[in-house]
């Protein structure tokens, strides 16, 4: 185990129990017991923290794999159009009024993610070209975005519209063990699939042609990427809405602490992604605002300046 992985694991092990204590109601283990503390911990904060760790890990791993695949430090798992596809599925569940039925919202989101994955494979699955693949993903993202806007503008009731818009902001509030049951297996399988891309992503360091000369099978890699990104990102959107920037920021920050090979970035990015979402969600809970800050907004607020700094640095390098 590398020092970086050990460090991130230790940070996560420390942060996880601490996160359970933070919130509107602070639980101090050394003070007088808080009423309903067990209930708050086991039914509210624990599933939420577990979900934060799982989804963050999935998004971090997806971002690392995505940047390795596209050989671009600015790539984000959202580029494949799977997150917008999943979001469209979820929006349709609100639109049809089925979102209130247990399991149906995440199921619709997963169907949306699955449809985006199928469409992606159909358009680009045979070529193995990353360029075509990315363009196909952008087309799907654009289509899904347009259909979401259409669904919002044609909302049957103002209440449904408000619910859709709020949900799209992404959050972990009011999540239960049911969401963990849906997201955990899919995300874990997704991360396992992404880990299998490691050697192929390393080979891609030398460009597509040299990578193929090293034994890379571009079509196999494409299938693994569709499966891995689809499962991790699809599960994340299904359980928490759209949470951006994790997949962009985390691998980028960690790259300098690895030997530069994409394969060496996936596990640390999963751990750091888990840590980032866990801490960010904690901050959302404790900020003294009238209503809880949505996690998606918080991460975008954190991510946008980071992205800007990245662009400015890139601009300096180009001048």
């Amino acid at each position: 185990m590398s020092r970086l992985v050990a460090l991130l694991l230790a940070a996560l092990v420390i942060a996880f129990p601490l996160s359970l204590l933070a919130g509107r109601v602070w639980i101090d283990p050394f003070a007088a017991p808080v009423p309903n503390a067990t209930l708050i911990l086991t039914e509210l904060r624990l599933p939420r923290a577990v979900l934060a760790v799982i989804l963050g890990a999935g998004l971090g791993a997806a971002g690392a794999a995505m940047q390795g695949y596209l050989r671009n430090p600015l790539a984000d798992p959202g580029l494949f159009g799977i997150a917008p596809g999943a979001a469209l599925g979820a929006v349709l569940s609100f639109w049809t009024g089925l979102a209130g039925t247990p399991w149906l919202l995440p199921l619709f989101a997963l169907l949306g993610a699955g449809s985006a994955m199928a469409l992606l494979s159909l358009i680009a699955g045979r070529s193995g070209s990353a360029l075509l693949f990315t363009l196909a993903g952008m087309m799907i993202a654009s289509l899904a975005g347009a259909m979401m806007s259409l669904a919002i503008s044609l909302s049957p009731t103002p209440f449904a519209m408000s619910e859709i818009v709020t949900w799209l902001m992404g959050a972990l509030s009011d999540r239960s063990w049911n969401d963990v049951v849906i997201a955990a297996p899919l995300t874990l399988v997704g991360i396992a699939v992404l880990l299998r891309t490691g050697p192929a992503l390393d080979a891609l360091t030398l460009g597509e042609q040299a990578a193929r000369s090293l034994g890379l099978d571009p079509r196999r890699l494409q299938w693994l990427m569709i499966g891995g990104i689809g499962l991790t990102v699809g599960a994340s959107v299904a359980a928490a809405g759209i949470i951006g920037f994790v997949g962009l920021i985390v691998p980028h920050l960690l790259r300098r602490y690895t030997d530069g090979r994409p394969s060496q970035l996936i596990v640390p990015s999963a751990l750091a992604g888990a840590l980032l979402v866990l801490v960010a969600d904690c901050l959302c809970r404790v900020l003294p605002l009238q209503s809880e800050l949505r996690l998606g907004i918080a991460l975008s607020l954190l991510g946008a300046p980071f992205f800007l700094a990245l662009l400015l640095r890139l601009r300096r390098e180009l001048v």
Partner: protein
Amino acid sequence: MLQAQHLILPARLDDVSAVLRPGEITAIVGPNGAGKSSLLACLAGLLAPSGGTVLLGEASLSGLSPQARAQAIGYLPQSPEVAWDVSVETLVALGRLPWRDRDAAAIDAALATMELDDLRLRPVSRLSGGERARALMARVLAGGPRWILADEPLANLDLAHQQTLLQVLREQARAGAGVVMVMHGLAEAMNHADRVLVLFEGHLLADGPPEAVLDQKAIRRAWGIEAKWLGEAGGRALAF
């Protein structure tokens, strides 16, 4: 043996056949757009010809698994990119991917052969063009391929390192590897190759020992210039 049999690629190769032998350095030469890189990519199994086949030994190259092909053939592209700022050692270790190991002895030997021992921990972004070209060739050598296919490997090297690389490739050929290079420098092909393939507009114009193939007539036909060779065999220069 590595054989190209009636290779056809629309607008690039037109019925090109050649038998390449291990232990030899073969130079593929020709003017721009003649199909040199396309032929090399077909021989490396990276471009599927629309007609014809490439045989590695008795087996069709397209029938081999990507891993088996990668173990047998090391390929150096014309404009190699390195997407991430890895160290020289990590870059060279990528050459072991077909074997799914990180054989330290093979990596050390490749670094030593390309005179990169002192640079092994240096990030690729801090290498000069020549150092980078040597590191990329070391990556190919680290895989210990039976065939080394390189697209203009001398392009970024100064004279001393061109000489070193040509010596390294000669040693590889003596050890039994087949070396195939796309080259622009006809003098290097004349002085260092055992055999030359001249391509022109997708056709194989000539195939044979350099002294026999690279005569004034062939140069006039393929490049459209009047040129003459100066000096003795093994140390010739081209005047035009």
